[in-house]
């Protein structure tokens, strides 16, 4: 029987949108399935322009149904419709081992609410597993991905500065956003005191120059509400319009994929079975190709649910790899302190990115205290009116003091690389079900001694660097926050050279199911310490190019 579609893309977030765009532009008839509701660009950004006094809770929201989601920094009352309701979307963890799972079940997924930080990985990262023996060797290196990074950056628009750093390769950048006056000063001091360190503006998928159908950033920094200017990359602003323009896209929202169907005789995926999230009715779709892009942990969940006689523990899982080696960056507020001497200086507008201090540990010299490294994100900012509640004072003097911007501070948040470990894993809970009847995911992820050692060093170094400004350190944390809070969860269906120890090959293709590609964070064999989304995008377009070539050649 002729399949209904050339390809099914599961998920419509950052990678799903890219897969749909690339596959449709290459002429394939594509069904993109999204578990959440439809959100139309501009029209459905219902809170975008509302003032605080027009919101039911002044922007703070009633968070009682969002105890997990509200831990994410992009969450507020305006963006709340772009996150899942925790009460309706449960998952399991072990007692004493919490995991903060930030999710967005809607058309566009987390592309609507992502932090937009966009960094290339280098061979410092792709070579890390082989170098120290933790995890399996990546089957790819930077040269394999570099042209696809170009392709992605040119389309989505990434603003940033060219720095010539081997550990953080330059890309196809739009003009960078500006460092503010305090950041410029600290940059000079830090780079003078530490020649191996750089303070640079964050590379961010917010436009500083227009693109077709998209306007430059207006410096509101309210991106997660949805941006009618289309100034940041999201499925809605970028990949979905491109996919729709081909006439080859069929979009199905409000359907969660229960499983990928597998035909043991041909050794191929034949399609998917999905549930209407409203009626709970099942429906099947067939295709010649399946791209799994449901978000790292949910993609692993789909594979775990896709059992068969040949694969009783999940599709493509001949060994005992599926669900294991999950990661998230260990992160914490390494230090925040005051920066005196800039009274009389302020800024205008809200820049939607901060600064970055790229990794400097174990780059040019070996540090024997820990493996791999960490980087910082943060920036200089002035205190705002909430500062009035942190110390005594009432009345006219308080009102007058809060009328002006507050003292300057500088904050550095450390992001440490997380080693891949087998015991950090996702399983299907044997008892607890989602409201739709599917088994809940059980997430077990704890940081180890290496992550703790990295963040302890990050705290000391952050204090020293901020201290160069001559102020006082107000707070410094050296221990990791709750896993998941970096919102960089990845792994579980990792790439590798050996089918016995990995699920995917170097093309994001399942070793044992040639027409199945997993191109979101589930594919990651290590975590590096920089934001991973740009790499997911580059791997997706690379895999799509390969898949279509092979499909047209009749090889898969």
């Amino acid at each position, binding site marked *: 029987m002729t399949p209904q579609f050339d390809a099914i893309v599961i998920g419509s977030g950052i990678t799903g949108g890219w897969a749909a765009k690339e596959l449709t532009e290459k002429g394939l008839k594509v069904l993109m399935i999204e578990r959440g509701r439809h959100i139309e660009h501009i029209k459905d950004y219902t809170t975008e322009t509302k003032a605080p006094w027009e919101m039911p809770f002044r922007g703070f929201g009633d*968070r009682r149904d969002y105890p997990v989601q509200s831990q994410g920094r992009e969450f507020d009352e305006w963006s709340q419709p772009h996150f899942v309701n925790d009460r309706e979307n449960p998952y399991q963890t072990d007692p004493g081992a919490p995991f903060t799972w930030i999710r967005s079940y809607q058309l566009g997924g987390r592309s609507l609410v992502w932090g937009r930080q966009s960094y290339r990985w280098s061979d410092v990262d792709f070579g890390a597993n082989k170098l120290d023996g933790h995890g399996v060797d990546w089957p790819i290196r930077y040269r394999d991905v570099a042209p696809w990074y170009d392709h992605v950056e040119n389309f989505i628009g990434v603003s940033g500065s060219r720095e010539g750093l081997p550990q953080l390769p330059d890309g196809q950048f739009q003009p960078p956003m500006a460092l503010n006056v305090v950041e410029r000063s600290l940059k000079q001091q830090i780079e003078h005191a530490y020649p191996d360190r750089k303070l640079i503006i964050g590379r961010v998928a917010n436009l500083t120059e227009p693109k077709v159908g998209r306007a430059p950033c207006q410096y509101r920094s309210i991106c997660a509400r949805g941006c009618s200017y289309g100034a940041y990359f999201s499925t809605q602003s970028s990949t979905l319009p491109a996919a729709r323009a081909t006439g080859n896209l069929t979009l199905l929202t409000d359907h969660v994929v229960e499983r990928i169907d597998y035909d043991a005789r041909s050794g191929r995926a034949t399609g998917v079975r999905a549930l209407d999230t409203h009626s709970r009715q099942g429906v099947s779709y067939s295709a010649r190709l399946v791209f799994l892009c449901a978000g790292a942990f949910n993609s692993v969940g789909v594979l775990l649910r896709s059992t068969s006689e040949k694969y009783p523990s999940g599709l493509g899982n001949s060994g005992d790899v599926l669900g294991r080696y999950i990661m998230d960056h260990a992160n914490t507020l390494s230090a925040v302190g005051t920066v005196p001497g800039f009274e009389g200086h302020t800024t205008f507008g809200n820049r939607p990115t901060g600064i970055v201090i790229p990794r400097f540990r174990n780059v040019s010299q070996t540090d024997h205290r820990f493996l791999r490294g960490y980087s910082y994100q943060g920036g200089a900012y002035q205190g705002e009116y909430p500062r009035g509640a942190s110390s005594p004072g009432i009345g006219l003097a308080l009102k007058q003091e809060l009328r*002006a911007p507050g003292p300057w501070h500088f904050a550095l948040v450390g992001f440490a690389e997380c080693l891949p470990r087998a015991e950090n894993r996702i399983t299907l809970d044997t008892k607890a079900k989602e409201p739709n009847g599917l088994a809940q995911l059980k997430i077990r992820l704890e940081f180890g001694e290496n992550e703790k050692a990295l963040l302890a060093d990050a705290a000391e170094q952050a204090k020293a660097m901020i201290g160069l400004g001559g102020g006082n350190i107000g707070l410094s944390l050296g221990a990791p926050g709750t896993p998941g809070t970096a919102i960089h969860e990845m792994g579980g269906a990792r790439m590798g050279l050996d089918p016995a120890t990995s699920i995917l090959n170097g093309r994001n293709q399942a070793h044992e199911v040639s027409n199945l590609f997993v191109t979101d964070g589930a594919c990651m064999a290590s975590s590096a310490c920089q934001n991973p989304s740009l790499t997911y995008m580059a791997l997706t377009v690379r895999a799509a190019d390969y898949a279509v070539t092979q499909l047209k050649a009749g090889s898969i």
Partner: protein
Amino acid sequence: MQRREFVVSALAATTAATLWADLNRLARAQGKAAAASDPLFDAVCDLVIPDSDTPGAKRAGVARFLVLALAHGIAGSATEDRHRLEAVLNGASHGDFVSLSRVKQHDVLEAVDAAAYGTPDSVWPRIKGLILMGYYTSEIGATQELRYQLVPGRFDPDVSQGPSDRAFSNDWTGQRF
């Protein structure tokens, strides 16, 4: 039933939506034009952010925001916080705080405020924080006391800050970086 008691029992028993409906019904029943307010919350709002060349927190209606905030647990608050605040202020007043003159209320609250920051689990910093949140997110606080510009359109990395220049309230409602 006294209004204050009504508010307290309503807080414990109803959701915010019904609470507001109840409060407005009560206000109408009492022939008031505006929704019901709370004398204790009105007093502390006026003392924390008083009128100056711009209206203060009482005129901005922040007391009503406090009722809403506590009913919905905003910023870690709870409906019991109002009882706790009343007990602290009445204790420091050696009587009924609300009945004191404004000058005496100021002295009492100033002392409570000064002591609260060295007192673990004090309810006052949380209430004070909610007053500030309520005021600077009100139209009066956000646009008259401070400036509000939803679409800055540009980023200037170094601007001279004059002594009379007011902060932008939308800097807080935007993501910092």
